[in-house]
């Protein structure tokens, strides 16, 4: 997270860490329902070397190749409220395109759900599509400025950017922003997600219901925090139906 601030303990109890068995974190995620993690699809397969990136040619991470930690705050040191959870199975979005990051969303089913408490709580699914200009909070353990990893979970508060503005900005870089994506950040850059934050939550407060809900998950971007380089996130509302079909979760 570039230009972020440390997260206050217990204010983002849905944030999950995806880490290798050696404890090395590699992505973020969000707890959904009692035993599901929403994250980015590109977190869960080996880095590509061939052009053929259709779903069934991706080499998925095996459930035993990573674990999920919730209730986490510090990046590498253990926390008193963290719960380490094993993975039962992984579902990539059926229309995920590893080349273009379309539908870059995946679901991880946990073998056992965590114990919910003040530090572990699921995020709600959005009831409405995201609003341009709405303030959202993105959190993660990814790189900060000067490529250094943070000691603790960091967060930024940024606005959602108009889809067309974002699409045109990326068109100059020959990048395609599609309808299943959301952009957020400031035009002049500054606050942004970065490598290692992928899959992490973009949330906003639904004032009507007094609930935080998941707007998007960190997906991709060019550089981190540069001018006209918005962060691109996978739109959860766009894929809500698929998420509910797979998980059966409703708010």
């Amino acid at each position, binding site marked *: 997270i570039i230009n972020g601030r440390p997260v206050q303990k217990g204010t983002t*109890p849905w944030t999950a860490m995806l880490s290798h068995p050696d404890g090395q974190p590699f992505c973020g995620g969000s707890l*959904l329902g009692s035993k599901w993690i929403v994250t980015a699809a590109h977190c869960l397969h080996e880095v590509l070397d061939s052009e053929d990136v259709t779903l069934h040619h991706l080499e998925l991470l095996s459930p035993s190749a990573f674990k999920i930690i919730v209730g986490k705050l510090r990046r590498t040191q253990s926390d008193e409220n963290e719960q380490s959870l094993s993975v039962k199975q992984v579902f990539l979005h059926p229309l995920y395109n590893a080349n273009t990051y379309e539908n870059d969303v995946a679901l991880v089913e946990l073998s056992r759900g965590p114990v919910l408490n*003040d530090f572990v*709580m699921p*995020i709600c699914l959005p009831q409405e599509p995201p609003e341009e200009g709405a303030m959202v909070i993105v959190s993660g353990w990814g790189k900060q400025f000067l490529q250094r990893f943070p000691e603790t979970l960091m967060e930024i508060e940024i606005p959602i950017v108009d889809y067309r503005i974002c699409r045109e900005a990326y068109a100059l870089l020959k990048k395609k922003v599609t309808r299943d994506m959301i952009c957020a950040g400031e035009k002049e850059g500054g606050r942004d997600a970065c490598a290692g934050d992928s899959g992490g939550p973009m949330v906003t407060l639904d004032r009507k219901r007094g609930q*935080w809900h998941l707007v998007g998950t960190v997906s991709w971007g060019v550089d981190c925090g540069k001018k006209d380089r918005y962060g691109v996130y996978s739109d959860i509302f766009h894929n809500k139906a698929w998420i509910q079909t797979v998980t059966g979760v409703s708010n």
Partner: protein
Amino acid sequence: HLVELNNMFGQIQSPGYPDSYPSDSELTWNITVPEGFRIKLYFMHFNLESSYLCEYDYVKVETEDQVLATFCGRETTDTEQTPGQEVVLSPGSFMSITFRSDFSDEERFTGFDAHYMAVDVDECTEREDEELSCDHYCHNYIGGYYCSCRFGYILHTDNRTCRVECSDNLFTQQTGVITSPDFPNPYPKSSECLYTIELEEGFMISLQFEDIFDIEDHPEVSCPYDYIKIKAGPKVLGPFCGEKAPEPINTQSHSVQILFRSDNSGENRGWRLSYRATGNECPKLQPPVHGKIEPLQTTYSFKDQVLISCNTGYKVLKDNVEMDTFQMECLKDGTWSNRIPTCKIADCGTPAELENGVVTFSTRNNLTTYKSEIRYSCQRPYYKMLHNITGVYTCSAQGVWMNEVLGRSQPTCLPVCGTPTFSRNLLAR
């Protein structure tokens, strides 16, 4: 002379007809026609010497046992009778005609010319003799007749009386009514009816004659025609007949045979009896606490069955097995097949654990019996109950925890989402 005639018709004339007949002669014609016919005789010409009471010349018509007519002279007077246009009919299939002339005949008498023919006897209309007439229906045909019977009856081998097939009446119910066939109409003739009352050992059958009792009898001889006999075990009661019904009979047996026999005559209305089988009485029963006995009777006897059931929320407990109802039977030795079971309050047992929730008992010492209440609640604030139900479950009469919305399904605690205990101050400017 004797002439035997067997034709169905014929002519008979005096000797020498139409010349005068000789004196001092006697001629008999015996006419026989088949059964079912009679003979009709009539004269076309008649001219005999007349005499007081036809003592000289005459024609005599007779059957085996009676003189039908004696004719003489030319016309009928108060002492002589000529046939004129009269027809003489024989009662049966035989007629004998005798012509006699005495020794002196001053005048010339030309005698007679007679004709005869067989005519059918309509046994159906003529037969007075009850002994021989048809019992139900009579069908006359030329030369005879036959009988038939009403629906449900069978023509007896005597081809006259109608009997019924009534030898396989079996009664197995504990009570019943038995009557003679077609009661209260006259019972059929020539019938041998057998009514069997067959019950399980342990029952005692008692008989009671009712209403009309009318079986053909005889003033001196005991029931020589029709009668009813009752066989119960080794005992045989009867024969009964006449118009006075026998007294109520307690046969002391579980198997009784009633034999009713009728001969081929008589028009009597028969009889009707009701029977009841009772068994040994069993002791009075007390319903279990929280239960009831059905049917509730002052006394119970052999084969009576009762159903024990419990009030709502209680189950019948027998040999540690719970059931909804329990049946008992009064046995033939006057004991009950079982002891009265008890009624055990339905117990829903310890309620199932609720994932991410807890159960609390709303009644003293965590009762789990009928009507007890428990309350499921989810671990707040992290979980909340799906469907926003009360979580209150009541132990139902079927021994199942029931919720008014979910029925017997357990509630579900869903994670509460998006409402962290610690809230940040939004830094948005």
